């Protein structure tokens, strides 16, 4: 069912949700940087810039407590986190590439182990997607089989239309429920034409061919030339909408502390560093190879799709100009 919401009504919707105590997370500017963050009011909403981090942290926080401990004498007591405390959230203005990442993460966190933290947050979040009207030469969603109008992952999907406002498409029960609750703010039908969508310039990549090459080239001299320049930071993984590795650390004092889960990145030297001192991925190209392998082979092996939505963030933000789209494209031509 397609409906319409004006910009003003969208703002009213968001302000109403905020007033009702819901957490509204949407692109806003934080000290000059566009990021998905909770809005204090709808005025903060920014729709003309792609946030520098993806929306994944609404479900998979940068860092979260998973338990706390206290010690007294020879006793240790542990307190679990109550997931009921997770706030109801509406994630608004999520670009297609970021929204499409959400089902990809769902698969991982509800696979052999059901991650109650992720799943509870996921359950409590409604995703309002946004069709993408701008692209640069780092964008490559179309190359990995998605599009600027991809509705996957969204509960409600907004497409900007001529003359302002958005045409709305409900994609799930959650989306429908949202529209129903605030039905007065939505017009029944949308007559305006959608604004022209973004047109990423990257050609479609034959991902099966890429996987085929990766299947047989764990050892290959190409890895050196691809990744010698990698300096081993975690920027690519942390801005990625689908990277989902995490580390668990205990922080606190002898008397009390917290066990925390936070993002990790396979580019880090410490990622596979064993307690023994041995590191199976002892050189940066081996670590970068894992990034490509995981995205275009291992994930596919397990879940039948690619662990990349073509948002292009890692290309834009890599300090040393590593270009994953270019690398995959080259592999596909081998």
């Amino acid at each position, binding site marked *: 069912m397609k409906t319409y919401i004006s910009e003003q009504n969208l703002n009213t919707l968001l302000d109403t949700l905020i007033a009702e105590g819901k957490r509204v997370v949407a692109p806003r500017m934080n000290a000059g940087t566009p990021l998905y*963050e909770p809005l204090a009011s709808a005025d903060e909403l920014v729709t003309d810039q792609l946030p520098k981090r993806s929306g994944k942290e609404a479900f998979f926080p*940068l860092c*979260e407590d998973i338990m706390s401990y206290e010690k007294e004498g020879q006793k240790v007591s542990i307190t679990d986190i109550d997931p009921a405390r997770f706030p109801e959230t509406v994630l608004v203005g999520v670009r297609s590439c970021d929204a499409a990442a959400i089902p990809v993460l769902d698969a991982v966190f509800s696979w052999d182990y059901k991650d109650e933290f992720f799943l509870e947050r996921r359950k409590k979040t409604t995703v309002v997607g946004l069709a993408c009207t701008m692209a640069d030469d780092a964008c490559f969603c179309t190359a990995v089989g998605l599009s600027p109008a991809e509705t996957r992952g969204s509960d409600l999907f907004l497409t900007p239309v001529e003359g302002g406002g958005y045409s709305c498409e409900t994609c799930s029960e959650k989306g429908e429920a949202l529209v129903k609750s605030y039905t007065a703010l939505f017009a029944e039908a949308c007559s305006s034409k959608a604004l022209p969508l973004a047109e990423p310039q990257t050609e479609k990549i034959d991902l099966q061919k890429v996987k085929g090459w990766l299947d047989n080239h764990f050892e290959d001299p190409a890895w050196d030339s691809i990744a010698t320049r990698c300096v081993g930071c975690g920027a690519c993984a942390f801005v990625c909408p689908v990277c989902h590795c995490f580390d668990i650390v205990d922080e606190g004092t002898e008397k009390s502390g917290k066990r925390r889960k936070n993002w990790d990145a396979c580019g880090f030297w410490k990622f596979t560093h064993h307690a023994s001192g041995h590191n199976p991925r002892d050189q940066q190209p081996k670590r970068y190879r894992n990034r490509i392998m995981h995205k275009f082979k291992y994930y596919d092996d397990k879940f039948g799709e690619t662990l990349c939505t073509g948002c292009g963030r890692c290309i834009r933000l890599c300090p040393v100009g590593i270009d994953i789209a270019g690398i995959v494209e080259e592999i596909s031509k081998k």
Partner: protein
Amino acid sequence: MHTEKPKNSFEPKIIAFVCTWCTYAGADLAGTSRMQYPSNVRVLKFPCTGRIDPVFILKAFQQGADGVLVSGCHPGDCHYIAGNFHARRRFAAFRKLLEFIGVDLNRLQFSWVSAAEGGKWVEVVTDLTERVRSMGPMVEFKELAMEEQWSGTIDTPELKEAYNQI
């Protein structure tokens, strides 16, 4: 004799990093001379101010110190020849950094207190304690310790309560 302090009045937590040869001995002298000073200070003994890492000062603030004192031998008196000279440069730089980050330097004191200066120890500790008391608690680091990135925040009344207590 025991004057009652008003209830709930703020008692600052002062951490002192001192060298064992001069300032620790100076504090011992204050004790053997039965001088009196506020009980807020907790002393950590180091062989030399040269051993004191700026990170310890940071850690002290993070762990809830409202004021930090670093004290060692007067220049030329270092038991280890030059440890205090190295410390002097290190802290000259570090305090500028903390100031630039937004730490009020009135909470961070550097002193030379020799083994003979029990009186000076009392004076330094008393002054710092009273100064910090009048400034109120060091809320900045305490707030930080309780804050989460927005995505990891859990809304619990207990946490809010604790946060407001700072």
